[in-house]
């Protein structure tokens, strides 16, 4: 049943395009049932998990490598699973309204459901390999989603950037997981989390940590890998609301939390995470202040929130872990809601530029209410879940030592700025004088406002009834992250103390920043211009450099002249044959001339030699080819004489056909009939040829020198007739004993044939241009090719 729930989004993704064809945007109601069902099913696990149990299950995948397809659900996984499926349900509905009438809506549904399935897989995976596969699957599906409007260059660039950064990070993660595997000898997260001591004492701890951080920081858009997150706002808003608030970017945080019991409690962990998290928090809010686009403002606060989460996870005290857990849940709810609000405004008013919006409250009361509730939670005001999170953050950071004070300051500045941004998004478009908007604004349909309203109300409700929420969600999740039973107790009734004071200061800062937002925006723009280009430009430069490098390398190793390829190949062959015996001094001894060679055997030997002489003396190419045949036939006869009829038989046919085909190819290529190489070139080529021939001769002499091991011969002779019912041992080996090899070989023959056919078909004079990723250029070259 759990398996079904894990695959339900994938199944819905398969059905999505055809359902949408029949039902249009109303298909959302049916498709949303899939995540809704999974969500309800996972809700059923709550009591069990709250009691401290874990749910495991799965199937063997490759038992010999200790690999399995297995899941492992504890408080952490379950909370994530609920967020993914719950918010996923709302997002599917929202996408139904938002993308209504879009010709590609079915494709969109399919992508977002695929992503949902992948994300769900990440958070419940037990085995490393499964985690990695799902992890990369989220990168790939998010590539598809970000690049959904693939006709726009900006969307394509953003999609590629996200794929390169997160997919590349996934490779680091894989390496890190392999380190963990080597250290612990285990491939299952559920077992590895109990091996903290072993990992922490390992000399490879730092390597494993850095690699895993590489994976998590890229996925969770930590500075300096953050550039892809704001650029991913090129995606349709449902994607931003889902991937870039609640799911995809949280995957990195998820893994950090998951591995906290294993990798945490070490200086490196407690320095690196708060350091990068703190920088990301501040950078995100500063960059966000500069924006006027609602989605970009939210994107940068998401980046900042991720920084805060990473910082708290790395702070590694029980309070910090509890704070991270609460903030993660709160953030998923309010950020999802605010993104959807931004989408509704864009959809109904025609713009998301905050300076061109105002006075929408009257036209869109429901949206305004949802936005306000979400912003209150984001601002951390009492009664809301966000408030609990913020209180807990300050509990964690109110330690009094220098480190705590530093990070408390960072958190206050960041939170203050996020407070200002939250209300800039939630208030600015709705209050004030009505502004003329591109579209005449009015309330969106139920499909649009349902999602933000539900999420915003949940944010309030969770704050109000904090007891059950803590029991079923926060405490089990915090226990899983901490690796020890933890109880979250914080409630919405404020306690007098330093945390409350810090909260008040934060709110004060937030109000101040909000009122001065215009001035701060100008200031930030100036500051950033002074700093110069950021990692986003760096990404472009790196990609451009990579392309230039590969062009240069390709020019060198593939100049397009056959002589160069052939020369290089044979020089390498000669070196391979001659260098090892030279280095190791393994030259063969002088061959023993066998006595009693019959006169006819000598005769064929001489024919073979005379064929070679004829090749060298041939006046034109055609006679050289035919003369080569003489040598080949003579060798075939020698095979026959020494008892290899099959070999000789095949050699005859191969010789015949190669003479025919060489001759045909020569006429086809319209080579000049005779050879006009300059003498120097001839000597050079002759040297290579002699070196290759000599190398092969020495190799053969050497390999026949040793004692012949005839165990295989005996085996095949004994069993060929007995078990394979064939008297011709050679053929029996080919088609029966080693049949799979032969299958591979005939596949190669077939593919070689296709390749040669394609080469022949290229007409002289038609120029082929290398295909690239730019469809415009490809179109141009197609058009050019046809003319």
């Amino acid at each position, binding site marked *: 049943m759990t398996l079904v729930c894990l695959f339900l989004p994938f199944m819905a993704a398969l059905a999505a395009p055809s359902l949408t064809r029949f039902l249009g945007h109303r298909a959302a109601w049916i498709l949303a049932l899939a995540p809704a069902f999974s969500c309800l099913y996972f809700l059923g696990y709550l009591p069990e998990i709250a009691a401290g149990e874990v749910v495991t299950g799965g199937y063997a995948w490759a038992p010999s490598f200790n690999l399995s397809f297995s899941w492992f659900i504890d408080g952490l996984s379950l909370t994530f699973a609920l967020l993914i499926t719950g918010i996923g349900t709302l997002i599917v509905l929202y996408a139904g309204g938002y993308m209504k009438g879009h010709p590609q809506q079915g494709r969109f549904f399919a992508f977002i459901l695929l992503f949902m399935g992948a994300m769900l897989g990440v958070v419940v995976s037990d085995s490393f390999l499964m985690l990695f596969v799902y992890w990369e699957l989220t990168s790939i599906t998010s590539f598809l989603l970000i690049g959904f409007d693939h006709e726009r260059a900006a969307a394509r660039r953003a999609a590629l950037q996200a794929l390169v950064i997160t997919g590349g990070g996934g490779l680091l993660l894989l390496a890190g997981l392999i380190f963990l595997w080597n250290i612990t000898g285990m491939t299952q997260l559920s077992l590895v989390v109990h091996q903290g001591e072993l990992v922490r004492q390992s000399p490879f701890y730092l390597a494993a940590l850095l690699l895993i951080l590489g994976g998590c920081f890229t996925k969770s858009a930590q500075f300096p890998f953050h550039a892809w997150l704001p650029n991913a706002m090129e995606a349709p808003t449902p994607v931003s609301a889902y991937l870039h608030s609640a799911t995809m970017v949280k995957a990195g945080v998820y893994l950090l939390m998951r591995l906290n019991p294993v990798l945490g409690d070490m200086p490196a962990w407690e320095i690196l995470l708060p350091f990068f998290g703190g920088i990301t928090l501040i950078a995100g809010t500063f960059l966000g202040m500069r924006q006027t686009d609602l989605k970009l403002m939210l994107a940068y606060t998401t980046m900042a929130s991720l920084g805060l989460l990473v910082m708290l996870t790395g702070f590694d005290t029980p309070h910090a872990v509890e704070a991270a857990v609460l903030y993660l849940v709160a953030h998923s709810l309010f950020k999802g809601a605010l993104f959807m609000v931004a989408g509704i405004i864009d959809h109904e008013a025609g713009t998301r530029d905050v300076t061109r919006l105002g006075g929408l409250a009257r036209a869109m009361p429901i949206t305004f209410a949802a936005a306000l509730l979400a912003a209150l939670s984001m601002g951390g005001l009492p009664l809301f879940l966000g408030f609990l999170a913020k209180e807990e953050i300050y509990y964690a950071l109110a330690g009094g030592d220098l480190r705590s004070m530093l990070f408390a300051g960072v958190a206050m500045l960041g939170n203050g700025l996020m407070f200002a941004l939250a209300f800039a998004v939630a208030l600015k478009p709705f209050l004030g004088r009505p502004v003329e908007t591109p579209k005449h604004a009015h309330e969106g349909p139920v499909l649009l406002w349902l999602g933000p309203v539900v999420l915003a109300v949940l944010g309030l409700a969770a704050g109000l009834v904090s007891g059950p929420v803590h029991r079923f969600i926060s405490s089990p999740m915090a226990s899983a992250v901490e690796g020890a039973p933890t109880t979250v107790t914080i409630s919405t009734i404020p306690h007098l103390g330093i945390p409350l004071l810090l909260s008040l200061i934060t709110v004060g800062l937030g109000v101040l920043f909000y009122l001065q937002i215009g001035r701060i925006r100008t200031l930030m723009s100036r500051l950033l211009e002074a700093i110069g280009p950021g990692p986003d430009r760096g990404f472009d430069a790196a990609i451009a450099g990579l392309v230039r490098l590969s062009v240069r390398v390709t020019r060198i190793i593939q100049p397009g002249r056959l002589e160069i390829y052939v020369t290089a190949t044979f020089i390498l062959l000669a070196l391979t044959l001659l260098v090892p015996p030279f280095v190791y001094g393994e030259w063969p001894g002088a061959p023993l001339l066998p006595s009693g060679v019959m006169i006819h055997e000598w005769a064929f030997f001489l024919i073979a030699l005379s064929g070679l002489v004829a090749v060298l003396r041939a006046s034109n190419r055609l006679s050289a080819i035919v003369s080569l045949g003489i040598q080949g036939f003579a060798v075939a006869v020698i095979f026959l004489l020494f008892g290899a009829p099959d070999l000789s*038989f095949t050699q005859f*046919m191969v010789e015949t056909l190669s003479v*025919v085909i060489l001759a045909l190819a020569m006429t086809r290529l319209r080579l000049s009939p005779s050879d006009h190489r300059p003498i120097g070139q001839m000597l050079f080529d002759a040297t290579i040829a002699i070196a290759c021939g000599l190398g092969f001769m020495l190799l053969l002499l050497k390999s026949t020198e040793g004692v012949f091991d005839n165990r295989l011969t005996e085996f095949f002779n004994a069993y060929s007739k007995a078990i394979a019912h*064939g008297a011709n041992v050679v053929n029996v080996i080919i088609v*029966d004993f080693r*049949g799979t090899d*032969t299958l591979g070989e*005939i596949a190669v023959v*077939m593919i070689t044939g296709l390749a040669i056919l394609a080469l022949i078909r290229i007409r002289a004079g038609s120029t082929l241009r290398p295909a690239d990723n730019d469809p415009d250029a490809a179109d141009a070259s197609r058009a050019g090719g046809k003319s």
Partner: protein
Amino acid sequence: MNTLIFRTVAPFLTALMILFSVFVLLRGHNEPGGGFIGGLIAASAFAIYGIAYGVAAVRRAIRFHPMSIAGFGLLLSTVSGLVSVLLGVPFMTGLWIYPHLFGVEVPLSSVMTFDIGVYLVVVGAITSIALALEEKESD
């Protein structure tokens, strides 16, 4: 090369060679021969016919595109291997049946169909290369 003698002999030679190639293919399990060599013989037969009568004549005579023949051969060989899997023995295990046709016991096997597949791949691939080379650039 298009002498009268060659043009007269070519059809007979081709027919004979193809017959011989099938003979070589089928006897391969017990005597020198087999799918690979048989395929090479048949491919040279088509090459001869092509040199004598032109590529179009060969293409008409064999009806299918040679690459389709090769593809079919590859499919046949793969299926011969897969039949074993369906019967619960490892991939490519030889399966034998001994039906009596006209009172003679004829051993048939998945190994034989595999070898026929090899034959078809070789015929198809080599013939298509040879024919493509024989074709004039203008056609």
